[in-house]
């Protein structure tokens, strides 16, 4: 399997564990309009799943339904083998943490206070947070790399810091499943890479992670499995380089693009940005008249600690 070869840390994850979350045939309607039609998904411990697809494909809506934030119109969503509407909000809060796309930034709340609020599903009603809770908060801050600014006010943080705090809030919940809706969409290259490393590391530590991702190169670098959504349907699922082939990129995103992943975990998406033959083209487009290939990848290094660094700075060269 080519993906296992490119990402050594993934080869070590247990190949088949029972899914914590299983969604099948999920339909979601918002205000009378069908948004998601018969979508499927399975999440497993120690696996990172990325949902990709064009704008308006229903990714966020589907993910919100899976997380229990929206009630689906049809299909089944099971958490721990139990139908989601029988799980209950309180138990669900201990099973999954959700990081929204545009988190609110509360005024007058310090970072560690916000993370302690994230801990609240684990603190009994009317009990004061104890030593174990404070340690859990510090642990969450450390795992999200947010310890350095734990005493600052939320309103003083940069976008990248804010997103790490959101991650820490989610980790403080102590849930085995982490769901994030486009956690990197507002971040610069460096902050995106930091977030990618953090999410990958959390996966290796055993969390089941579900992300909505727009950046296909990033998805290919960090995901064990990508699920492609198109017009409300899940149209493909599997290892990134298998699923995100040139034909599918042309069919779903209507661009002539190809995804490259090399042995040391570097990924690149080469897009014929200005190709007029554009939509639906399945043939080769990188002839002499094609515009120079652009690298849209944030260059996330997804193999933290991986011993085998393949080449010496292997370039993101097209393999065509």
């Amino acid at each position: 399997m080519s993906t296992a070869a490119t990402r050594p840390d993934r080869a070590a994850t247990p190949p088949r564990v029972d899914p914590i979350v299983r969604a099948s045939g999920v339909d979601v309607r918002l205000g009378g309009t069908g948004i998601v039609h018969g979508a499927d998904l399975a999440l497993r411990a120690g696996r990172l799943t990325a949902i990709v697809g064009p704008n308006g494909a229903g990714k966020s809506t589907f993910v919100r339904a899976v997380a229990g934030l929206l009630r689906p119109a049809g299909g089944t969503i099971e958490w721990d083998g139990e139908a989601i509407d029988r799980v209950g909000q309180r138990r669900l809060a201990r099973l999954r943490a959700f990081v929204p796309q545009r988190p609110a930034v509360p005024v007058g709340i310090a970072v560690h206070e916000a993370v302690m609020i994230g801990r609240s599903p684990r603190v009994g009603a009317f009990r004061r947070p104890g030593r174990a809770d404070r340690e859990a908060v510090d642990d969450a801050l450390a795992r999200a790399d947010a310890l350095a600014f734990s005493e600052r006010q939320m309103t003083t943080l940069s976008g990248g810091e804010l997103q790490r705090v959101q991650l820490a809030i989610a980790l403080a919940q102590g849930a085995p499943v982490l769901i994030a809706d486009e956690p990197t969409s507002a971040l610069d290259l460096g902050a995106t890479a930091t977030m990618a490393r953090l999410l990958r590391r959390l996966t290796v530590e055993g969390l089941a992670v579900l992300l909505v991702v727009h950046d296909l190169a990033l998805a290919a670098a960090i995901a064990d499995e990508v699920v492609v959504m198109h017009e409300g349907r899940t149209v493909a699922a599997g290892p990134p380089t298998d699923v995100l082939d040139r034909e599918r990129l042309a069919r779903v995103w209507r661009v002539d693009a190809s995804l490259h992943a090399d042995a040391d975990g570097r990924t690149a998406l080469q897009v014929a940005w200005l190709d007029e033959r554009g939509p639906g083209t399945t043939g080769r487009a990188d002839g002499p008249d094609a515009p120079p290939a652009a690298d849209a990848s944030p260059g996330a290094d997804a193999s933290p600690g991986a011993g085998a660094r393949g080449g010496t700075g292997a370039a993101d060269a097209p393999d065509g």
Partner: protein
Amino acid sequence: MAVASARPADAPASTGDPPPDRAAARAAARSRQALVLVGLAVVLVCAAVLAVALGSTVIPVRTTIAALPWVGDTLAGWPVIGGGVPDEADRQIIESLRVPRMVTAVVVGASLGVAGALLQGALANPLASPDVIGVTAGSGFGAMIILLAFPNAVTLVPLSALAFGLLAAGLVFAVAWMGRGGGSILRLILAGIAIGAVFTAATTGLMTAFPDRVSTAIFFIAGNLNEDGWSVLRQVWYYPVAGLVLAAFLIRPLDRLALGDDVAQSLGVRPRAIRLAAAAIAALLAAAAASLAGLLGFLGLVVPHAIRLASGTSSHRFVVPASALGGAALLLVADIISRRVAAPLALPVGPFMVLLGVPLFLWLLRRASA
């Protein structure tokens, strides 16, 4: 390959290496909050004693303390403040007039402070106060209809103010929560303004219909504590007490709501339900406060802000109880001033609450932005 268990070599540098001043920063924040709480408590206790001592006639503080139920016996042997000997007239005034007035001020101030804190948290809107959910306008109408149209039934003013305040809030919630997209903050605020306008218009209509009786209503509109003894408190005390107890259950859900609806839901609360519950409890508290002391809604707007500015935190675990203390202290001090400024004539407390609260608030605002 044993890669899965290996710690990433490129882990971010700051992990596990907290800056040494972390504990100090937290301790400083905590002591600032403790200072605010202790300061408010001291002001509250001193003001409570002075509010009993100072009225149209002045009773010495020692005598006052000695005449207070159970407090007098406990402090009898203390130097300076113990050992007063109240006569029967002092006792009479203190027990049947001034203590109930002081207790009313504490209950009203605490209720409005908490109502404001709940609403500002639930609606994520710094301008939220009991006015925005229509309670003030409803209570005003409820009192006016008795005072102007049925002056012989004046003892019904508190209950009518309470009932119409709750009715107005009920209408606002019904409009705001019905149908698609119900429960949004914007819809609640707009419904509150619309329903409030209806009750304000009705009140104006009443005043036009009975112009010669309007003067009797001025004290209610201005916000006023009176010396009715325990009778009104006895009628309505359970509403504010129930509201204050229920408010305690909302502190943690409101903190979760501060992180946004999605995160709150992820943490196991239903944002719409919390918002509705907080607004309903705030309505109960504000209507109860209006039934006891007229229209003092401004207190609910300004006190939670002052608490946030002074303490540096917006955590509801701190702001809600501190707003109860702060509201009670502010109203008590204002009440003392309102009775002493033109003694023996007692003026309505509302304008003095504003005169006292606004400069304090503006000073905190200036200090915070500096």
